[in-house]
């Protein structure tokens, strides 16, 4: 009958421009939403999205609406097929994010009515969540909020009459709405039940993310040194220990295969909790890592956190990779005052050497063992040799092959921590001293603003641990004798001193630190980030429970459910009340308006059409009676009462409302229930 009130039917005069601005806003929101993922998905996807957006924009200017269904299907199918081909596996998160992005943008080509625009916005709100799959930082949160702001502005634009909001006005309008929502945000954040996820998404974090691995192949840490990515921040209870004693043990490599060191989880080393007076308490907030180990200081005794325990090798093991920001409280013994014993199987394990690889090293070890009966002397001898003849450099050239330890020790003699640690431990084993390699981080940067120590990937370090009868496991860091400044000044100081040129992130990081003002600002920002991680990102079920219990000590889980129920009922009640009040508000929608609207609907006319709104009820009845005289006849009573109320000062509000209800009920009966009439009215429609 009369066209639906759609974008299409509004295309006249100013409405055309209005439609155009809506499309601009929609596309702006989409571009903002997609931006954080730009480097994560293949470039062609973004090119494809840009093409679709461009097509929509060009269409917005002209009147070429139609894209055949087959073409739409083709556009989506091509996108999905390419996505499939470029990811080749469907269970990575980025594949699904890419698919969602494709759907979000491809919906543009279907944009015909307001409803499609609302769907795009809804999908946009959903899509904004994917940002947090990759980062939960304060910057990301602010950015995503900005995206939501734009989406809300677009909603505002869609809801307001065409042409009433110009330029950036929708933004200012929606900002007040968002500000009003902040109290609700806080309440929901604090009180909304936090459940542990029912399933976990396999995040493809390992791809392209640097980090320690549970194997030591010579040359690995070099890769880490080139990254300034944050690993964790540690806050100490009291004064933090000096940088040189901060050896963050993360992984223990206890198995030697040829020249490669590996982590063997099946090793049986008895872990004896120490009893000592000098414990060190500290808190770690870790960033997402690809490994399932949490760095800790030597002789960690206790760890508090979700899904972690102290493993027999004295490192903190998590049951899964640390995929999100997490907080751990730890206690370590600084000077274990006891004598550890080594069981026979683990002694054998820690002395085992490949019988074929590195013959020169084995021979030299044997010689040492014969020359110096005391293990301490052998260690001193080797360290002395290292100090005299070895050079610390971050660009040692490649050392590889089965006998790479031999090549390094007796040929190149140039390397960095992992070369020293790996070869020292091999040599120790050859000399009959149980030894292993420890991977982790050394030192870190103290941030005075947040009073914490910040450790980045370039602080990665490797060192050795040897077992000496009567003393137990002892840390020996061969790097500290070759390049003591690496330990004293940290990696950053080391690079500065040595003047080595690094053309990458680390170097930029160091250069930026040169500007005092910038450095301070950076420290402040980092401290803020730390606070964010600790309080917001790490706010989980237990934190929530602790907080609630602190204020309401007698709180019970049952009460919490009840409170939640009451809160939601209250919210819905308020929502319902506002809807009711809106209906009652005579200024906004008068009785007469509602009656007129409903009556037009009864007459199968579209009440949102201005032409229908411009018709009086009598005229509407006439139009109706042309379509179906017997139906229009039913409306006589209502028309009489309406006219009487509106223009004669006669019937009251109730009388008219009753007449309208009677009309509606009769129509219902007339159209659908009355036997024999049903098919006629359908065929007429």
């Amino acid at each position, binding site marked *: 009958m009369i066209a639906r009130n759609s974008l299409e039917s509004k295309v006249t005069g100013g409405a055309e421009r209005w439609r155009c601005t809506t499309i601009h806003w929609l596309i702006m929101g989409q571009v903002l939403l997609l931006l954080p993922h730009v480097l994560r998905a293949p470039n062609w996807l973004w090119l494809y999205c840009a093409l679709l957006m461009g097509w929509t924009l060009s269409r917005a200017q002209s009147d070429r609406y139609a894209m055949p269904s087959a073409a739409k299907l083709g556009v989506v199918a091509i996108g999905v097929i390419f996505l499939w081909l470029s990811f080749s596996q469907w269970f990575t998160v980025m594949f699904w994010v890419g698919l969602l992005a494709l759907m979000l943008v491809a919906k543009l080509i279907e944009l015909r009515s307001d409803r499609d625009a609302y769907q795009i916005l809804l999908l946009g709100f959903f899509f904004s969540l994917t940002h947090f799959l990759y980062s939960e930082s304060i910057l990301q949160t602010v950015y995503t909020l900005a995206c939501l702001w734009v989406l809300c502005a677009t909603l505002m634009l869609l809801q307001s009459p065409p042409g009433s909001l110009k330029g950036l006005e929708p933004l200012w309008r929606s900002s007040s709405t968002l500000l009003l929502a902040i109290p609700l945000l806080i309440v929901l954040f604090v009180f909304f039940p936090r459940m542990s996820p029912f399933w976990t998404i396999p995040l493809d974090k390992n791809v392209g993310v640097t980090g320690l691995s549970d194997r030591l192949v010579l040359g690995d840490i070099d890769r880490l040194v080139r990254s300034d990515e944050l690993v964790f921040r540690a806050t100490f209870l009291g004064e933090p220990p000096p940088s040189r004693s901060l050896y963050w043990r993360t992984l223990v490599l206890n198995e030697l295969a040829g020249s490669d060191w590996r982590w063997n989880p099946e090793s049986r080393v008895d872990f004896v909790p120490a009893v000592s007076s000098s414990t060190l308490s500290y808190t770690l907030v870790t960033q997402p890592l690809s490994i399932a180990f949490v760095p800790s200081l030597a002789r960690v005794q206790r760890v508090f956190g979700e899904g972690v325990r102290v493993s027999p090798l004295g490192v903190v093991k998590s049951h899964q990779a640390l995929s999100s920001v997490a907080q751990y409280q730890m206690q370590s013994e600084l000077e274990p005052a006891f004598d550890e014993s080594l069981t026979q199987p683990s002694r054998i394990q820690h002395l085992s050497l490949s019988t074929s690889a590195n013959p020169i090293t084995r021979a030299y070890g044997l010689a040492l063992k014969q020359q110096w009966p005391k293990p301490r002397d052998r260690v001193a001898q080797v360290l002395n040799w290292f100090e005299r003849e070895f050079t610390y450099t971050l660009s040692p050239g490649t050392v590889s092959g089965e006998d790479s330890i031999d090549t390094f020790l007796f040929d190149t003699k140039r390397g960095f921590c992992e070369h020293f640690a790996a070869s020292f431990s091999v040599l120790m084993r050859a000399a009959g001293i149980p030894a292993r390699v420890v991977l982790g981080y050394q030192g870190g940067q103290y941030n005075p603003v947040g009073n914490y120590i910040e450790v980045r990937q370039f602080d990665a370090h490797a060192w050795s641990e040897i077992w000496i009868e009567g003393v137990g496991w002892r840390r020996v860091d061969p790097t500290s004798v070759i390049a003591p400044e690496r330990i004293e000044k940290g990696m950053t100081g080391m690079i500065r001193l040595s003047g080595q040129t690094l053309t990458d992130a680390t170097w930029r990081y160091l250069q930026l630190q040169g500007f005092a003002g910038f450095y301070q600002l950076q420290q402040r920002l980092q401290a803020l980030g730390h606070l964010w991680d600790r309080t917001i990102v790490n706010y989980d079920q237990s934190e929530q429970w602790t907080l609630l219990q602190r204020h309401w000590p007698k709180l019970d889980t049952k009460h919490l459910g009840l409170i939640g129920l009451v809160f939601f009922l209250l919210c819905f009640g308020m929502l319902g009340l506002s809807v009711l009040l809106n209906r009652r508000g005579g200024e906004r929608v008068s009785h007469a*308006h509602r*009656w*007129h609207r409903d009556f037009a609907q009864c007459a199968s006319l579209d009440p949102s059409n201005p032409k229908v709104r*411009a018709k009086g009820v009598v005229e509407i009845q006439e139009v109706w009676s042309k379509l179906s005289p017997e139906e229009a006849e039913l409306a006589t009573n209502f028309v009489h009462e309406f006219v009487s109320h509106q*223009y004669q*000062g006669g019937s009251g509000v109730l009388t008219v409302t009753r007449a309208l209800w009677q009309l509606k009920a009769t129509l219902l009966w007339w159209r659908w229930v009355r036997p024999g009439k049903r098919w006629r009215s359908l065929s007429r429609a």
Partner: protein
Amino acid sequence: MTPLNRSLLKVEEALDVVLLGKREQVRLALACLLANGHLLIEDVPGVGKTTLALGLAKALDLSHQRVQFTVDVMPSDITGSSIYRADQHQFEFQPGPVFSEILLADEINRAMPKTQSALLEAMEEGRVSQDGKTYPLPVPFFVIATQNPITHSGTFALPESQKDRFLMRLNLGYPDQNAERDLFHRGVALLAMDVEAAVITRSELLEAKKAVQEVNTSNALVDYVLRLVRYTRSCGYFTLGLSPRAGLGLLSASRAWAWLEGRDFVMPEDVQAVFVSVAGHRLQPLQGMGDSANLGPLDCLAEVDVVA
């Protein structure tokens, strides 16, 4: 439907005999007179303008005079002039044709603006000033003017302010097919002379005018009229929107229409029925503005909500 209504409808029927198929225009003309307004009939020659004007005058039993306007008609030819009476040694005012209850001003736009304005002054103020004396015009006083479309040669267009003095402007238009066939069968056009004389009495007419004034306009209706009038100012289709005088005229014309429909209250449908006639000559469409150039009063009606 009171007896008074019925007798007014008899006037309509009497005119319908001579003006075939123009019932709506006849009713509008009646409504205009009942609302105490002057009437302007505009159309091409030969469609019955003069017949309608004369027929109305005859059927209503009012004294009427007819002036055929030409370029050389002077103001005094309308209002009258003072003549020196030698026997009494004084000037005596000789009233012109304006001193009648119905003045038929034929082809008003062929007169010079000077003459037009003399007539229009009389219309607005209901009196004539001559030589420092004021002579009141009779009550009721109607002017029924006819004019050819302004694009025709030898015409002086009425200025906006003077058009505003006419409550309504009617376009008769060509008769429809059936009416014209009847006319041709009849062979000759019936003239106003053939209208049945004095269908209603003078007192009935005055009574009817009084009844029209008492027709009720509710708040909702006044609001609707207000929206309409304000819309003509804000919609941007016209050089000027409707004046408050036009709004008042619209209300009283609607009252008259409602009364002729047999009601004692006005409905939006009444306003819509008279709107084009009341507003049409007061709204000058903007020239050369693309689509909006073709927009007129009817579009306003289609764009203003009946209920708020």
